[in-house]
């Protein structure tokens, strides 16, 4: 018997057989056939006792080599088969990634809240706190304490809705100024967003119910320059750095000097268009230095402290910023509208 020759034949057979192996089961069969306890290579070892002693080392060595070789072939082939199997599986599992994802119902933020929050964040960054006040006010807080005496023509500037002889629906958020000053000592830095009411018929640009935000700063040495700088910062934060801002003399009973704040029109950039009534400017807020009478009535020393205040219409701001052309849309809460924000 020539075991060395047998080994060669086994090797040759195995090499050929390997080419036919198509799957992992066949591969296992082949492993058992060649490397198992009753396999071809083992049978060579088993026959070693029958051959000459001097031949044994060479047969042993070759048999071991063959065993290692077949092991290597099998593992290499196994890897190949596994890769192929995985590839097939992935191919089968392939999905159409362009199909839409599951519809997740997320609620939306109302645009009025969006603009309010945006404004609040800007002011919090500037060191302001958020203040609130009741929507039903007394004559005192809504008018008198704001330097609007009973028979002053300034009362005509706002049409008031009354509850009874003593109480009314606040026509502006300015009463919060007074309430804040009564409750705390300077320095004061607040912004007070909230709902206000006027006896205005509902149309595309008027609503009996709308929203304002009131700002108030009181400290030592607060000047008109500070008012201008602060408002310019806000306009920049809201409308971007390329807006022009102008301040023009105006009248509010609770500020002196008073200023109306205009920004260059966001549609026509100052050229003139229907939105800005061809003036190139949009009126966005009223402002001014807090009137000494207002400071004194709230118990602040007007010779020692000074301050500025401003009021901005949030509905108007939302209309301008989001390009909405009718204030009523804000209160209709059409789902198709809400889901644009």
């Amino acid at each position, binding site marked *: 018997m020539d075991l060395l020759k047998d080994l060669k034949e086994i090797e040759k057979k195995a090499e050929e057989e390997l080419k036919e192996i198509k799957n992992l089961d066949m591969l296992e069969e082949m492993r058992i056939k060649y490397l198992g306890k009753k396999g071809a290579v083992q049978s060579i070892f088993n026959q070693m006792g029958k051959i000459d002693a001097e031949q044994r080392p060479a047969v042993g060595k070759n048999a071991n080599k063959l065993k290692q070789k077949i092991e290597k072939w099998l593992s290499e082939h196994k890897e190949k088969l596994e890769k192929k199997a995985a590839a097939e599986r992935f191919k089968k599992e392939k999905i159409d990634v362009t199909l839409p994802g599951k519809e997740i119902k997320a609620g939306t933020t109302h645009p009025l809240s969006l603009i309010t929050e945006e404004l609040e964040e800007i002011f919090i960054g500037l060191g302001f706190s958020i203040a609130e006040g009741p929507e039903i006010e007394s004559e005192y807080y809504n008018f008198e304490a704001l330097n609007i005496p009973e028979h002053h*023509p300034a009362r005509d500037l706002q049409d008031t*809705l009354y509850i009874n002889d003593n*109480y009314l629906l606040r026509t502006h958020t300015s009463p919060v100024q007074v309430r804040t000053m009564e409750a705390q000592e300077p320095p004061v830095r607040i912004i007070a967003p909230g709902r206000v009411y006027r006896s205005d018929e509902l149309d595309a640009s008027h609503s009996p*119910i709308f929203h304002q935000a009131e700002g108030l700063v009181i400290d030592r040495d607060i000047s008109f*320059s*500070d008012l201008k700088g602060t408002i310019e910062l806000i306009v920049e934060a809201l409308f971007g750095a390329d807006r022009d801002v102008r301040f023009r003399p105006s009248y509010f009973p609770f500020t*002196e000097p008073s200023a*109306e704040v205009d920004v260059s029109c966001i549609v026509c950039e100052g050229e003139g268009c229907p939105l800005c009534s061809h003036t190139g400017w949009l009126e966005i807020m009223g402002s001014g230095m807090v009137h000494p009478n207002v400071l004194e009535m709230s118990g602040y020393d007007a010779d020692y402290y000074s301050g500025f205040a401003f009021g901005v219409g949030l509905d108007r701001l939302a209309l301008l910023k989001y390009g909405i052309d009718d204030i009523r849309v804000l209160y209709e*809460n059409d*789902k198709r509208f809400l889901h644009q924000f």
Partner: protein
Amino acid sequence: MQISYKWLKEYVDFNYTPDELTEKLTMAGLEVEGMEYLGEGLEDIIIGKIEKIEEHPNADKLVICRVMLNKQGKVMTVVTGAPNVEEGKMVPVAEAGTVLPNGMRIEKSDLRGVISEGMICSIDELGLAEERADGIMILSDNAPLGGSIIDHLKLDDYILKLDLTPNYARCLGMIGIAREIKSLFTGGELNLPEIKFTESKEEKNINQQAEIIIEDPDLCPRYTGRLVKDVKIKASPLWMKRKLKAAGIRSINNVVDITNYVLMEYNQPLHAFDFDKIKNSKIIVRRAESEEEILTLDEKTRVLDDEMLVITDEDGPLAVAGVMGGYESEVTEKTNNVLIESAYFNPISIRKTAKKLGLHSESSHRFERGVDIEKAVEANNRACQLLEKYADGTIVPGVIDQYPLKYESAELELETKRVNQLLGLELETAKIAGMLEKLDFPVKVKEGIINVKVPSFRTDVSQPADLVEEIARVYGYNNIPSTTPISKQLGRRTVKQKFKKRVERILKAGGLDEIITYSLQDKKNYSDLKLNSDSQFGKFVSIKNPLSEAFAIMRTTILVGIINTLAANARRQTSQMGVFEIGTAFYYNGNSSRPKEKQLLGGGIFGIEENIWQENAPEFYHLKGILEILFDKIQLKNYRFVSDDSREYLHPGRTAEIYSGRELLGFIGEIHPEIAEKSDLPAGTTVFEIDFDSLYKATPKVNYHYKKLPKYPSVFRDLAVVVKDDIEVAEILNAIKEKGGEILKDLDIFDLYHGNQIKEGHKSIAFKLKFQSEEKTLRDDEVNKQFKKIINYISDKFSAEIRGN
């Protein structure tokens, strides 16, 4: 207030274009709301002459006019039906191609076989009158042939519409506006009217012919009168009519027009009485008697009270002082002699009277803002000058000037340091003083202090702050530098404000859209939705002066807004929607008390498909799920949903009250099917409302605190029980928890079943129990022991059949 650009130029020299003037006035605080060119659209209208009128061969009502268009003899044919065409008349003509102010384009057209090459215009077609005219406009015979209608009618002018705030009372007259322009922009002097007239030498002094008595000087600090005799009542000169029209004032006759003209010039309302109607030539200025009556110019009887000031004679009221004249003493065509009143009335008194009578006039508007008391005689004299010239009046010598409360100009002290501090400037004292002088304030300066006298026309200035604004105006608001004050405080939201944001975030994550609805509502909504059956919701706060029924009461619940929003969206074919709102509700609290305000959180949902628990109430459980995640996230303690059938607007079998401990926070429920149907709400629509303030109070202000994660494995057991239908799941859950002991860590329901295998009137509920120990790995027998205890307890307590065990 509206003014003519050209008229303004008579009082101050400027060479600004109307656009530049608009800009300047606006930046000075006199906001120009709009501007109008009087000749707008009339640029191509020319003056023609009707040379010849011929009959139309094919139409009785039409004629053919040969209209000459220029001196070179160009003729145009116009076919017209106007009844007042006349040969030789000068008329405004539009050739084909011209567009009229109303947008109409003139074309050549064939009118019954004759080509009409243009049109002869009527006054309304030119936009010069509102009412439709019967015929064409006939111009004066001296109108220049071929000339421009704009030039001929002096329409080359602009009207500026001013929106004046109450502090610009001085600018309610031309001279006042001119003074602003002079002071702020041009410098120089005003061109004031030169008042000249001749007092009659034949007439006795007015003091011998008339008498004026002021009984209430507090309401009438000054009253002046002048007498003009033998006036000829006729139409005013064209130039005056034109100016008044530009100011928006209708021409009546020369005398009335002259009083209005002086009003517009001087901002001093005048009144002309028919002197012969004043009994005994004696005027008494007094408070009206209570219930005293007067027939005013507008032919309405006004009932007066004793707070109102009236101008009377011995027989009774002749005029409501400063508000409106009386019908009886009005100037008419028959008037011969007039007494001109130029007075100063107390602003508050005028305002109250005008308000009570519902009479707002050019005169009351000015008196209630304050006129220049020192100019009363000057304005009266100006009227006399014009009456002499344009009404051929004879001026009676002398003036009656009752001036019981003399004007004393206020003196203000202005500190340079404070001015600079308030404006953020570094101006010298002299510079500030100079600015005030420009504005015609007399000043005296000494060491950083400026003494300022307030002139009588500055009724708006009463304290130094008012002067600070004037200085800012002269300096230019936009020339003041910008700075930002440094905050020494931290900006932040309060705990409650943060809580609100958090709740909103969670609800939005749960799929609800935030909405904002009106807090003024219609009472009818409440009865339609049966919400008024709720004692709380019926405590309406009503508006005393509502705009309409739709905005007549304050909301007492958020639900109206929620329901209306859902219904409106459902009507627009929205298939699914969930919304919430946090807002204020208001409750009546007695006739003269402050109503209560409360923050409420409300929400609603429709269009949910997943029929969880097979109860056919998907909306209820979906919305409840959102509330549960909200309560869990904000760590609301011990909340419970307790079955309730007390609300008429909700389904009695599908409503729960929400409690935290013993406190009722709100409710959730399906809208009553009958109401849902009537209100266009999809069946199953479910809503909730929670008292937001109570929710906030019931929520502990916890900080997050880490609990160690369990190290040992958990063991699960399923438990299915069959119980009677009327046993609530919550009872069983509580019972299981009660017996579960420390090692029962979690308890879920995973199935609820009514049906074939379950006996009538019963339901099967399947629970999943999770056991886990913090100290060791639980052995099966330990778990089984606990599980057995639970089973025994449940089957005993609820007569439950335990399935599959």
